[in-house]
């Protein structure tokens, strides 16, 4: 039962709840103007700026006919006067029926959910969790592949620090996937996630070159390889081009292949890929609005 439940971590939702969100997101996509939250107030608290996620959530709330209160930068709030997160949440939970929050510190959303009278939707807590991103990724996979079961998924780039890939692994574990991890040695998938996959009997392979896997997968999930993650800049210079996707590499890929990316993109997907019908990242971002409508509507019990 999703109603009145906080969404802090992707593991808070069961398989059935994930499927329910995906089904609802499809329903909102078919009919995006369902004013189910007329006259209701939702708080959007962004303790650190995030244009993309904030606009997506606020668009979702507006499409549902709800009103938004909040802030987009903690510098404009009492946080700068030393107010604790606890006090801010206690106060706002008296005003709004649901709180969407982004915070730079890890665990902030879980803590807020313990202090709040109303449900919390985590829109990112540091490097920890960003569950609405995971759900929109899954909605995108379901929409483009017609199923979530038995997909072959390649994850490319920064698999060490990328929270989106970690959450996606956990959530997809319900659906018997096969994973292909493509990363430079410095940014390999951490052992704790590989142990998780082994414990769940989910097959995975590790590669350094995406050409080795690109022709056999259904989903190519690209992430950014950030220069600042490397202790050795020479190593960065050596490997960086190996994690850039060019249109020419897509020639013999499967017809159903779709390329996903949580965005923002820097140079890891060459712009010549954008016009390829297999490029799906901008549509994926649009799917985020429907997914967030589904999350909010189901938590508030209006759908």
């Amino acid at each position, binding site marked *: 039962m999703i109603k009145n439940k906080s969404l802090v971590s992707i593991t808070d939702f069961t398989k059935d709840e994930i499927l329910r969100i995906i089904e609802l997101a499809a329903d909102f996509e078919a009919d995006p103007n369902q004013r189910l939250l007329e006259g209701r107030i939702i708080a959007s608290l962004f303790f650190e700026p995030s244009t993309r996620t904030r606009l997506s959530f606020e668009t979702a709330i507006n499409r549902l006919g709800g009103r938004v209160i909040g802030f987009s930068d903690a510098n404009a709030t009492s946080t700068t006067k030393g107010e604790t997160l606890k006090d801010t949440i206690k106060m706002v939970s008296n005003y709004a029926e649901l709180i969407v929050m982004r915070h730079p*510190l*890890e665990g902030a959303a879980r*803590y807020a959910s313990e202090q709040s009278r109303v449900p919390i939707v985590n829109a990112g*807590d540091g490097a920890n*969790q960003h569950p609405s991103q995971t759900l929109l990724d899954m909605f995108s996979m379901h929409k483009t592949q017609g199923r979530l079961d038995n997909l072959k998924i390649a994850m490319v780039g920064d698999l060490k620090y990328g929270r989106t890939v970690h959450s996606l692994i956990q959530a997809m574990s319900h659906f018997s996937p096969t994973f292909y991890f493509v990363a430079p040695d410095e940014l390999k998938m951490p052992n704790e996630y590989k142990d998780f996959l082994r414990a769940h009997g989910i097959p995975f392979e590790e590669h350094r070159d995406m050409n080795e896997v690109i022709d056999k997968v259904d989903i190519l999930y690209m992430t950014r390889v950030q220069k600042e993650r490397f202790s050795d800049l020479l190593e960065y210079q050596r490997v960086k081009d190996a994690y850039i996707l060019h249109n020419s590499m897509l020639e013999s890929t499967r017809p159903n292949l779709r390329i996903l990316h949580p965005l923002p993109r820097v140079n890891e997907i060459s712009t010549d890929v954008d016009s390829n019908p297999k490029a799906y990242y901008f549509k994926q971002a649009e799917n985020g609005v429907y997914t967030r409508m589904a999350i909010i509507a189901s938590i508030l019990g209006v759908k």
Partner: protein
Amino acid sequence: MCNVNNKELKVSAIKNGTVIDHIPAENLFKVISILGLENIPNQVTFGTNLESRKLGRKSIIKVADKFFEDAEINKISLVAPQAKLNIIRDYEVVEKRVVNVPDEVVGIVKCFNPKCITNHEPIVTHFAVQSKQPLELKCRYCEKVTTEKQMEIIK
């Protein structure tokens, strides 16, 4: 320890109470702090850097007229996993107990993650014990795992 026959008694005996033995010498003050022994009115005696075949150097604490609940004493398992308790009544050991790592650790340990909310606001830490040997504590908040090596006891 407490071997009267060998004339090795280095800490005076108690009539009633609890003797906590086999504490690693370097963790004596952590145990005292975890059990809050600095704040109780009971007579507390301790010895440290005592010879131990198991630990090299060990500490021992004797608390007069105090009998610990399991939940209370299990807290010290984080810093003294091999600790043994002797329950003393009328100078006799009437019961021996070992400590067990609990399934949840509330307070006591600091989350190792500098970006965890618990290190920035006054929040009681809360961990699920993911593994007892070696010790791995998963933070309820940031979801990161603090290992035995990274573990720091909150003063």
